[in-house]
C-alpha cells in the first residue's frame, strides 16, 4: 500500500517459524501509520547466510534494510562497529525498562541500547515420557541420572538404532551453547567472578570430560553427534531413535505435529545439572533482537517499527499464537499467559538461563566462539585431552581479548 509520499521501510528478518507474526505485525503497523509502508525482506534463517548479507551491506553503508533482526550474539559486535543506531532517544525509558534486562545487556554498549529483544529461546531437555514410564524411571534432573536412564532404556530396548542422548555437537555456535550448559551445570562459567577467563577451571574440565565420556565410555551418544546440527538431532528423536534430546524450544512444534511418531510420547524439562548444583544456570539462552540501521534514512519510523514489534500487545500475541517467549518481562504477567502453559513452562526454564559472553567480547565474540568450538571439538574428537584443549582455549581467548 504505497500511498503518496509514503515512507518505505525495509525490514529484514527470517520467517523462523513465525511468519504469521511478522505479517500480522506489519499489517497492523501499516494500518496505524498510514504514511509508512513496510517491505518485508525475508532473509535466510541460516544465521551465517544472513550475517554475510548484513556484513556486506553494513560495511558498504547501505541505507537498507532499515530494521533488521540480529542474533543476540551479534548485537555487541555490530554496535561496537557503529552499524546500529542507539535506540535510547527513540524508545521511551519505560519501554526500555520493560525489556528482559539480561537479554538487553547483550545489546547495551556504553550504556546505550542498540537493539530491542524480539524473542528469547533456550535449550531444554526433551525426553521420551513413554519409555521412562515403561522402565519406571523418574524424569532425570542431573547428568548422572540422564546417563544411567539412557543405559537402562538402551539395554532394555535392545535396539542398536536407539541412542540415549542426542544434541547439536557439530562444530557450530550451538556446540558452544551446549558446552556452556554443561559447564554452568557444574558450577563453572566462562568468566569467573573477577572477569577472568575461566574456561579451564576444574569444574569446566570435569563437565567437558562428561561430554567426552558420554561419547566414548558410556556410549549413550552416537558418533554422528559430532556432525549434528539441531535439526539432525531433532529428526532422530522424532523418529523414535533417542531417549533424550537437548535443543532449543522450536522443536516442540514438529515433535508434537500430527504425523510425528513421537507425538504425545515426549515431554521436556530444564537442562540437567551436575549433582550438587541444583541452582546452576544450565539453560543456554539465545534469541533475536531488532535493530535500526545506523545509515537508515528513516530512523524515526524504523524505531517506531521496532517499538511496535516489541510492544506488549505484539509480544503477547506472539507468545500465545506462536509460542515465542517474549523479550519483555511484563508480558509474562499477563492474565492470558496462564492459558499458554507451554510458554509458561519454557519461561520457567529461562529463569535458569545463561547467556553467551557476547556483550563483553563485543566485536571479538566471533573469534572467541570459534576458538571454543574448535577446542571443544578437539576434546570431543580426542585430538587433545580435555585439559589440554581447555588450557589452549583459555590461552587463545586471553590472547584474543588482549589479556
Amino acid at each position, binding site marked *: 500500500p504505497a500511498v503518496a509520499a509514503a515512507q518505505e521501510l525495509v525490514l529484514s528478518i527470517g520467517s523462523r517459524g513465525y511468519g504469521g507474526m511478522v505479517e500480522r505485525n506489519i499489517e497492523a503497523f501499516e494500518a496505524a501509520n498510514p504514511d509508512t509502508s513496510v517491505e518485508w525482506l525475508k532473509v535466510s534463517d541460516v544465521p*551465517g547466510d544472513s*550475517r*554475510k548479507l548484513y*556484513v556486506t551491506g*553494513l*560495511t*558498504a*553503508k547501505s541505507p537498507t534494510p532499515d530494521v533488521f533482526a540480529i542474533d543476540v550474539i551479534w548485537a555487541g*559486535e555490530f554496535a561496537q*562497529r*557503529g*552499524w546500529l543506531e542507539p535506540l535510547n532517544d527513540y524508545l521511551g525509558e519505560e519501554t526500555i525498562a520493560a525489556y528482559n534486562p539480561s537479554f538487553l545487556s547483550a545489546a547495551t554498549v556504553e550504556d546505550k541500547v542498540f537493539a530491542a529483544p524480539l524473542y528469547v529461546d533456550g535449550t531444554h531437555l526433551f525426553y521420551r515420557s513413554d519409555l521412562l514410564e515403561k522402565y519406571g524411571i523418574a524424569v532425570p534432573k542431573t547428568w548422572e541420572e540422564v546417563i544411567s536412564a539412557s543405559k537402562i532404556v538402551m539395554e532394555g530396548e535392545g535396539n*542398536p538404532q536407539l541412542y540415549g542422548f542426542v544434541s547439536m555437537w*557439530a*562444530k*557450530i555456535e550451538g556446540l558452544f551453547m551446549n558446552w556452556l550448559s554443561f559447564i554452568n551445570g557444574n558450577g563453572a562459567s566462562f568468566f569467573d567472578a573477577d572477569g577472568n577467563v575461566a574456561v579451564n577451571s576444574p569444574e569446566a574440565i570435569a563437565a567437558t570430560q562428561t561430554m567426552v565420556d558420554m561419547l566414548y565410555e558410556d556410549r549413550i551418544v*552416537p*558418533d*554422528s553427534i*559430532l*556432525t549434528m546440527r539441531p535439526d*539432525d538431532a531433532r*529428526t*532422530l528423536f522424532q*523418529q523414535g*531413535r533417542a531417549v533424550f534430546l537437548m535443543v532449543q524450544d522450536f522443536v516442540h512444534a514438529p515433535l508434537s505435529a500430527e504425523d510425528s511418531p513421537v507425538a504425545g510420547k515426549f515431554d521436556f524439562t530444564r537442562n540437567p545439572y551436575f549433582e550438587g548444583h541444583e541452582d546452576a544456570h544450565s539453560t543456554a539462552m539465545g534469541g533475536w533482537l531488532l535493530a535500526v540501521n545506523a545509515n537508515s534514512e528513516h530512523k524515526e519510523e524504523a524505531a517506531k517499527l521496532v517499538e511496535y514489534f516489541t510492544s506488549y500487545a505484539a509480544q503477547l500475541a506472539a507468545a500465545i499464537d506462536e509460542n515465542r517467549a517474549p523479550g519483555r518481562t511484563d508480558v509474562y504477567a499477563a492474565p492470558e499467559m496462564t492459558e499458554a502453559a507451554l510458554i509458561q513452562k519454557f519461561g520457567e526454564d529461562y529463569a535458569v538461563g545463561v547467556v553467551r559472553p557476547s556483550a563483553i567480547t563485543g*566485536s571479538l565474540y*566471533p*573469534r572467541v566462539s*570459534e576458538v571454543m568450538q*574448535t577446542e571443544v*571439538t*578437539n576434546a570431543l*574428537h580426542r*585430538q587433545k585431552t580435555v585439559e589440554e584443549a581447555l588450557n589452549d582455549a583459555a590461552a587463545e581467548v586471553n590472547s584474543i581479548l588482549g589479556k
Partner: protein
Amino acid sequence: MSRTMSLERRTALTGIGFVTPTILIIALILIYPIIQSVVLSFGQSSIDGSQPYQFVGLKHYAALMGDGRFWNALGVTFTFTALSIPLELGLGIGLALLMNESFKGKGLARLAVLFPWALPTALNTLIWRWMYNSDYGLFNGIALQSGLVDRPINFLGDEILAMGSMVVVAVWKTSSFMALIILAGLQSIPRDLFEAGRMDGMSKWQEFTQITLPLLKGPILVALIIRSMDALRTFELPFNLTDGGPVNATESLSLYAYKVIFDFLDFNFGAAVVVVQFLVIFAMSLIYVFALQNKD
C-alpha cells in the same frame, strides 16, 4: 574515421572498440575489486571507512606465515586438489573414451553423465550431505541393511572420511566436465593414427597409452588448469557439506578466507589470505604449463 588514417590503424581502432566493452565489464566486476583486495592486504583500515587506511606493508603476510590455521587450510586445499584432480582426470578420460564410442542411446547417456555438472553446487552438496548422514542417510541405510557394517559409518565426522566424502562429491560433479573437454580433444585425433597403430600390432591398451594419452596432452592441460583453479578455490563444497570440519580437517583456503572476512570481519587479513591464494593458483597454472610442455 579519417580517410588519411592507415588501414592498419583503422583495423586496430575497430579492434579496440570491440574489446573495450568486455574489458570495462571485467574491470568493474573483477579488476577493480581485485585491486582493492591487494590494497587492503597491505594496509590497516576499518571496513566501513571510519578509520583511515594506513599502510602496514607486509604485516598481514608476515602474520599469515605464522598462522597455523592458514597452513592447515593450505594443506587441506592441496590435499583436496591432489586427491580430486587425478581421480577426476582418470574418470574424465574414461568417460570421454566411453562417450566417444558409438552405441545406442548415446545422446541420452551423455546427457545423464553431463547432468551432475549442471546442478548447482550449493544444492547438490545439500543432497549429498543428506545421503551421507550417519543416522538416516541413504548410504548408511544401504550399508546397514545389507550387513556390510554394523555401526553406521560417520562419513562427515571422521577426518579422513570427511575429506574422502568431499572428494567424492567433487569427482562426481566435475568428472563429466573434464570428460567433455577431453572428448573434444579425443575427437580431433586423426583416426588413421589408430589404424597405423593396429598395423604396427598395438593392442587396445597400447593404443591408449601410446597414442591417445600423449595426444590428449593439450586438452588435458586445459582441463587440469580449469579444474585445479576451481579446486584450489573450493568453497561451497566444504561450506555446505562439512563446515570445514571435523575440527578444521576440511577447511579450505576459501573457507578460511570467508571466515576471516565475514565472521571475524578482518578484511585486511582476509585480503592477504586471498592474495596468497591467488598467487598459489597462478603458480600452479604455470607449473602445469611448464611441466606438460617440457615433456617433449
